């Protein structure tokens, strides 16, 4: 393209204590293009965005917007200059209503006073536009992360910015929502908005982006037009290793189930009003049971009952054949059930504690606070999981809040794998995790189940579910509609068919 760039960053360097997050990075964004920034977890993608939008000041380098040098001293200034951003973590205030979050800072006013009626009307229209039907007066906290993510996106696209930046906007979205988002992006691109898109979903990147900039370990690898860079080469550039290595990792793993054994956990008519219809589900030792379904189909709700995070109001749960009464998170932990929830921000990590401390939390809690885990054992386990999950930087003493989003997710996973539960429940474990690490995690899950651990696995990514699971429970409209057992049934197509058909016979 010959157009003058709208954003030009040259020689950007950013140091955090002990970590050089960006080193001599150049980045160019042209009007009307959708530009992907690619790289592994911790490569520096989010940092690049934060430097551009004034969250962090660069230690070296220049930024030009429309040819003029700029240095924003905060997101507000960047917004005022026409750069609208959705940061990686959903950053909204969930104590305020949906409408207020959409319009915070730019509420429609009558004189000095906010016109709440107009605000709700505009909010409704804005959400309608992306096909979302929410109660805009309800507090944002009453909606799921996915909805919150959509609200954050709606907020960002409404401001008619010159530049729109989306840092992993699709990490908790399902296909339909992603389609809608991509549609909106195309429309904006046609209107001349330049966009930066960061995602670990390569198919989305290839579908929507014109150009990509690849980073590795804080350094620029290069910039390519999407058409000139096949997927395996891209992966090679991102990881610095051959894509072929990955292929080998992504083999199908199935069939660890210990034959003819009574189920470890067995739900009979387990349900909760307004959340999930009564369902039957067995999980055996050494087995990975996947849960598939669209967003809002009740995947999370299903596992929360087994994890004791929600109380069932019908049916019963049997563990080792004995009725599990008074099931709550504490007793569940005592019974060998570990639950890794989907929302790492509010239910997971303690930002100020170190990587090691965060990892050890669940294990320590299981032992009771009086009996501390011996230091040597602790250090060994922490080191082992840092290596297994390839957490970077591999420093157990780094405060967790300083890690990149994907690496935080890995720490959370390690916490629950570390307790060596009999039943491990993973809700969207690979959200925001790069292709290489995803394979690592899948391999680790396979390995753990090979050792006899039972795993309940929730994921929006159907390939991941099919690749990993021995059996797949399919959900639709808060109801478990089928359990797919045979190999021939465990395909993405069959799952989709089941979901569609599940709607018909109602």
């Amino acid at each position: 393209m010959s157009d003058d760039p709208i954003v030009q960053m040259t020689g950007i360097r950013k140091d955090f204590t002990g970590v050089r997050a960006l080193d001599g990075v150049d980045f160019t964004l042209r009007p009307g293009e959708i530009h992907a920034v690619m790289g592994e977890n911790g490569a520096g993608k989010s940092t690049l965005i934060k430097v551009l939008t004034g969250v962090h000041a660069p230690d070296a380098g220049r930024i030009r917007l429309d040819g003029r040098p700029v240095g924003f001293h905060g997101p507000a200034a960047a917004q005022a200059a026409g750069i609208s951003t959705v940061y990686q973590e959903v950053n909204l205030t969930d104590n305020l209503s949906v409408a207020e979050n959409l319009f915070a800072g730019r509420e429609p006013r009558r004189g000095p006073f906010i016109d709440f009626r107009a605000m709700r009307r505009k909010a409704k229209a804005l959400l309608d536009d992306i096909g979302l039907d929410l109660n805009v007066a309800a507090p944002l906290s009453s909606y799921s992360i996915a909805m919150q993510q959509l609200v954050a996106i709606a907020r960002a696209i409404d401001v008619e910015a010159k530049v729109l930046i989306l840092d992993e906007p699709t990490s908790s979205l399902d296909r339909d929502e992603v389609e809608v988002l991509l549609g909106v992006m195309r429309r904006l691109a046609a209107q001349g908005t330049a966009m930066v898109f960061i995602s670990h979903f390569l198919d989305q990147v290839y579908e929507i982006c014109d150009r990509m900039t690849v980073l590795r370990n804080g350094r620029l690898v290069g910039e390519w037009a999407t058409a000139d860079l096949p997927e395996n080469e891209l992966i090679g550039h991102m990881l610095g290793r051959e894509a072929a290595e990955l292929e080998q990792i992504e083999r199908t793993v199935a069939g660890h189930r210990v034959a003819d054994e009574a189920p470890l956990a067995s739900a009979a008519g387990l349900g909760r009003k307004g959340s999930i219809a009564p369902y039957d589900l067995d999980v055996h030792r050494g087995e990975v049971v996947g849960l598939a379904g669209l967003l809002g189909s009740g995947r999370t709700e299903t596992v929360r009952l087994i994890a004791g995070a929600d109380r069932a109001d019908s049916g019963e749960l049997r563990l080792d054949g004995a009725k599990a009464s008074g099931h709550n998170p504490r007793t569940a932990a005592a019974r060998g059930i570990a639950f890794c929830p989907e929302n790492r921000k509010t239910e997971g990590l303690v930002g100020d504690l170190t990587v090691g401390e965060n990892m050890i939390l669940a294990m320590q809690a299981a032992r009771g606070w009086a009996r501390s885990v011996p230091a040597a054992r602790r250090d060994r386990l922490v080191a082992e999981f840092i290596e297994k999950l390839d957490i970077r930087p591999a420093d157990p003493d780094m405060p967790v809040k300083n890690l990149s989003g994907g690496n935080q997710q890995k720490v959370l996973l390690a916490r629950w794998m570390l307790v060596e539960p009999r039943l491990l429940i993973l809700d969207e474990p690979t959200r925001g995790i790069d292709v290489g690490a995803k394979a690592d995690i899948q391999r680790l899950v396979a390995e753990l189940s090979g050792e006899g651990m039972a795993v309940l696995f929730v994921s929006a990514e159907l390939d991941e579910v099919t690749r990993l699971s021995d059996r797949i429970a399919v959900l639709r409209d808060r109801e478990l509609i089928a359990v797919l057992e045979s190999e021939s049934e465990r395909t993405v197509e069959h799952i989709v068919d089941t979901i569609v058909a599940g709607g018909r016979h109602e």
Partner: protein
Amino acid sequence: MSTHQLTERPSRSMLFDGLARYIPIGATVALLLALYGGGVANYPKFDSPQVIAKLFIDNAPLLVIAVGMTFVILSGGIDLSVGSVMAFATMACAWLTVDAGISAPLAVALVLAFGTAWGLLIGAVIHYFDVQPFIATLVGLFLFRGLTLQISDTDVSMRDVEFFQWGMVHAVDVGEIRDGGFWLPNLSFVAFAVVIVAFTVLHYTRFGRGVYAVGGSESSALLMGLPVARTKIGVYAVSGFCAALAGVLAAFATKSANPLANVGAELDAIAAVVIGGTLLTGGAGFVLGTVAGVMVWGMLNTLIAFQGNLSSWWARIAMGVLLLAFILLQRVLARSGEKRRT
């Protein structure tokens, strides 16, 4: 554009979510009614309207500082300096009119401006130097108590008493107290005006909603591009102004300045705000709840006065117990809130 509708995950138990916000303030109002009912049942004359009116006469200054405190706590901060600033403001009114010979209206204007400026300064320190509000405002607590005592360690009477008389002039006077009438002075109406303005600002202006946003999550508010600095500094300015105004109201009420007045008033204000249902962690609460919280405090004192044989410390003891109960109630609600969302 898109014709197809996305799956909407129904916002679970929304009704409850909506109502949960009102449980603490509901509890406060219920408590208030219970205290009042108890008083009426046990003491003759407790049902006189003047008992209620007197709450707003005796506690007008407390109400004003509690309103300022509500802003600060909603934003996730705390202001420990208000009691001292208030005492200093009263003393400054006396000093400016007596020693400096300035006219009373001008003195009042100067004091209010000073309170606001102090708030701005401490807010800027808190925001730009990232100092804990607790520590930064503790500075004010010591500084202004010291300065007040430095000006005078004994009571000082106001000059220009005619001007200061205005505060206690009956603004409304309905019948004889003996026949079930009541009266309220001008200074109560000043306090009411503060409440109304605060309510309007908090609920209907960008600044007010920004206070809630910053209290909900400061880092999110920053990334959303909200004017976090202005908001954080603003709440301390509001609190400083309110503290100075409360000092002026005290000057109106007593026409003298006592250097040891209002020791611990900041804690009474915090207690009233929390009992009024505002979360100490910020982001949730109502200024009208604070009014109820102040009324609870006043009602306890009234009950003890009617009882006649109890020391006034019982009001503090009761307040302590209530505070504990309310903090626990908030925790329980917050927990069940966390549990309910996925």
